[in-house]
């Protein structure tokens, strides 16, 4: 009895000490982590729409619902209104699509006419040196910029992929096509009137 009590207590004490240590580390690191997440988000939005000086997350649930179903099979996770000097100049759409190594989280910028202003990769889990070519070969993401208003899945599929990283490149093409569909079905003409 005494012996088994000793075992229980020793595991319990270890766990309590470990939990306390982790809680302390977390308390110190949490604000920094939040800050870094916010910065990363801001950078990725800025990257797809350099002219914008602010982004507001869309909270209109009806709009999000329509856009989400239009984006399937990719998953739409957020929509932002891109603003410049108070007036709306376009949209930033966050989607995740399926790559080779799991989901690829992308941000796609669209101007008010529906033309693509930029694509950036928030995070991905592709094979380093192969799948990650979609990021390191700069021309690949650049070719999406300027896809014309009203572009459809066919236009996206006509763009080049990279030999050796076909499935990663397809993941990104799927994501951009999904953003295009979301724009066509939901976002087009839904800009808010400029603040007087």
């Amino acid at each position: 009895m005494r012996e088994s009590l000793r075992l229980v207590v020793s595991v319990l004490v270890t766990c309590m000490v470990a939990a306390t240590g982790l809680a302390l580390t977390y308390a110190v690191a949490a604000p920094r982590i939040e800050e870094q997440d916010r910065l990363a988000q801001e950078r990725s939005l800025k990257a797809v729409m350099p002219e914008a000086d602010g982004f507001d997350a869309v909270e209109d649930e009806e709009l999000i619902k329509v856009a989400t179903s239009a984006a399937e099979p990719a998953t739409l996770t957020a929509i932002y209104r891109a603003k410049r000097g108070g007036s709306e100049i376009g949209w930033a759409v966050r989607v995740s699509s399926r790559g080779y190594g799991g989901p690829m989280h992308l941000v796609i910028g669209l101007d008010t006419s529906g033309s693509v202003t930029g694509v950036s990769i928030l995070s991905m889990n592709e094979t380093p040196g192969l799948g990650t070519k979609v990021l390191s070969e700069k021309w690949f993401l650049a070719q999406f910029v300027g896809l014309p208003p009203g572009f459809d899945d066919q236009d996206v599929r006509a763009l080049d992929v990279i030999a050796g990283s076909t499935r990663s490149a397809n993941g990104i093409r799927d994501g951009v096509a999904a953003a295009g569909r979301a724009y066509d079905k939901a976002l087009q003409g839904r800009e808010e009137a400029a603040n007087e």
Partner: protein
Amino acid sequence: MSEWLRVFRQGLGLENPLTVLMIGLCATLAVSTQLQNALFMGVAVVFVLTMSNVLISAFRRQIPDQVRIPIFIVVIASFVTIVDLVMKGYVPAVYQVLGIWIPLIVVNCIILGRAEAFAYRNPVGLSIADGLGMGAGFCLVIMLLAFIRELFGTGRIVWFDTTLISMPAGYAPPSLLLLFPGAFFVFGLMIAASRWLNERMASVRAPKGGAS
């Protein structure tokens, strides 16, 4: 002191965790596609390994034999989570490339293996030597493996978007090296090389072993 050095050097050579003991291969083969990732993985492993060795060695008389494994795991997982949180908050650039591999350190058998085989039976000083030596041996091998795979698999070595070394133009990199079979091929050759080296060093140390 000489005992300390001997333990430290064993991790590098004769008892190298990767090429001789062959533990912790899963994470090694997965992460060794880029030199940069391999280095940070190595540093994280050295930290976790040394810290858990110290703690387990310091409390080795208090830890009951029957529940030592759960206690080791809790200690190791805590240090890994600390590394994870600190990296996320303070070096996001590194975290972005390595993030998904950090939790894998928990299941890296090197760390549990050293806790069980060494730290639980030896004093703190020697456990530090073991942690640092085994960690350094891990670093050395994973970085060499990553260097070979990255250089010959992609044709160049990239360090945070800067190309350090590149193969001559016209070199068509076989992407096989970057995939898992390539990891096994290169690693197999490295084991052969390290055995040859260890044998040679042993025969240099004892030269009168020959027939003549």
